[in-house]
């Protein structure tokens, strides 16, 4: 069943002070099935974040439309949970209060808020930190809270914009396993933007490679690796084969992207 349909979505940013308009995204079409975990892989500046922001409703497409369960998307809403690359926890709220933000907005009764937040605090391993403020947490813990905050709303789809991009390698690997564990348990539909090839393969059942600007979908590769996945999978020959292929695909685009900067 199609959960999310991206239909010929493109984005042109108007030129600033007489300069040429920027074509950030060529028309992109994509059908996301229920329970899909799709990673969108591309060089920086390829418009992958723009695409995600359009799905979130934070940006408007120049052409095309986005349908979530058949309903057109025009503005942000709690049915599409999002985790950003930058740390976006509310600094004046504690971990628990951050996680309950969306629930409070929905006027969920306090007792139920507590129960839900308890569950997600447990799931992202933040028990004992419920009453900490974001400033008192490490980057990894902040992103885990952000993930719990998005999940607590029980969105139809989870949008992740390089959520582990600012973390160090070890923390990032642990976060991948944590997220994958959550996905394996709940099978929530996920759209995950990254420029990390290992991450893209390890997490996904489908990898979309995007071209350098203006971005369009270059190829769509199904990742046929069994679940549950364990970090040791990253050293198997099957994984290496996917990695070799994607490295080749992305390398061409990275070179093009680098040339575009000149």
């Amino acid at each position: 069943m199609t959960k999310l349909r991206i239909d010929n979505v493109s984005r042109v940013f108007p030129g600033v002070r007489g300069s040429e308009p920027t074509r950030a995204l060529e028309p992109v079409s994509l059908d996301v099935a229920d329970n899909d975990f799709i990673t969108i892989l591309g060089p920086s500046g390829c418009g992958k974040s723009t695409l995600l922001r359009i799905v979130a409703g934070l940006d408007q497409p120049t052409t095309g439309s986005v349908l979530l369960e058949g309903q057109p998307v025009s503005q942000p809403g709690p049915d599409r949970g999002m985790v950003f690359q930058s740390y976006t926890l509310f600094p004046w709220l504690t971990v628990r209060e951050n996680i309950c933000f969306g629930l409070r907005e929905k006027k969920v009764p306090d007792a139920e808020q507590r129960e839900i937040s308890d569950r997600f605090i447990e799931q992202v391993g933040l028990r004992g930190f419920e009453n900490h403020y974001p400033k008192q947490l490490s980057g990894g813990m902040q992103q885990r809270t952000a993930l719990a905050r998005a999940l607590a709303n029980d969105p139809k789809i989870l949008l992740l914009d390089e959520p582990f991009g600012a973390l160090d390698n070890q923390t990032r690997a642990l976060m991948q396993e944590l997220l994958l564990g959550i996905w394996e348990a709940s099978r929530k539909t996920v759209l995950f933007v990254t420029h990390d090839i290992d991450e893209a393969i390890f997490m996904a059942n489908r990898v979309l490679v995007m071209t350098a600007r203006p971005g369009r979908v270059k190829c769509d590769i199904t990742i046929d690796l069994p679940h549950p996945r364990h970090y040791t999978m990253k050293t198997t020959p099957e994984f290496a084969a996917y990695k070799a292929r994607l490295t080749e695909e992305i390398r061409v685009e990275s070179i093009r992207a680098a040339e575009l900067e000149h």
Partner: protein
Amino acid sequence: MFEPLQPVSPGRRTVLGILFFVLFFAVWGGITLGGIVPPLFLADPLKALQSGITLFTEHGFIVDVGLTIWRVVGGFIIAAIFAVPLGILMGAFKGVEAFFEPFVSFARYLPASAFIPLLILWAGIGETQKLSVIIIGSVFQIILMVAVTVGGSRLDLVEASKTLGARRSGIVLRVLLPGAAPQIAEILRLVLGWAWTYVIVAELIGAQSGIGHMIMDSQRLLDTGQMIFGIFIIGLIGLISDFLFKKANQRLFPWYFIK
């Protein structure tokens, strides 16, 4: 101690802070008691203190102090009640800002003290006139500074709140307001300091009571000791209110003061 940005210990900080006061009084005492400056122009510290004690014991100066504090706080609270919400609305909604901003920016430069003759005409020399001076002096400053602070809120937090289901009122009340609250408190602390200058100016002209009125009276008697003591009392009250404001902020916004 002279390593850039290196913190000093709290004990040393206190000692250094007090040291300057000591130095200040020493220099003042030196030039007055040493006869460098004639007492007609500048009373010595002991004389000022004596005058101050007489003011309290014989002239009921405490009533003047109380009245002045009441005027400052009253005028300031009235100004804040109007200015803070309007500033928040201007910061949050660009249309509201476009409507008010040019006028407020203009009004901000109107000197409050220049309104005093006009205000005496309108409101007499009673409390209404005193409060009006302070309100005029503070309200536009608060509006603009709050608007700038709220307008500079983190856009990524607003976006995050939208993806969590927040709409217009939720964004203003649950993101912009709490995010800007500590800085708004700082703005109020700052403007309260300015309000003190307005109240004294208001009391210098056409007043029957207050610290400013006492200073004016003392000038007629050429009592520089009393004048200096009055000015010092204002400084002291400012120091205390500043301290209380800071403590209250730390209590109200603990998250803002983490590291």
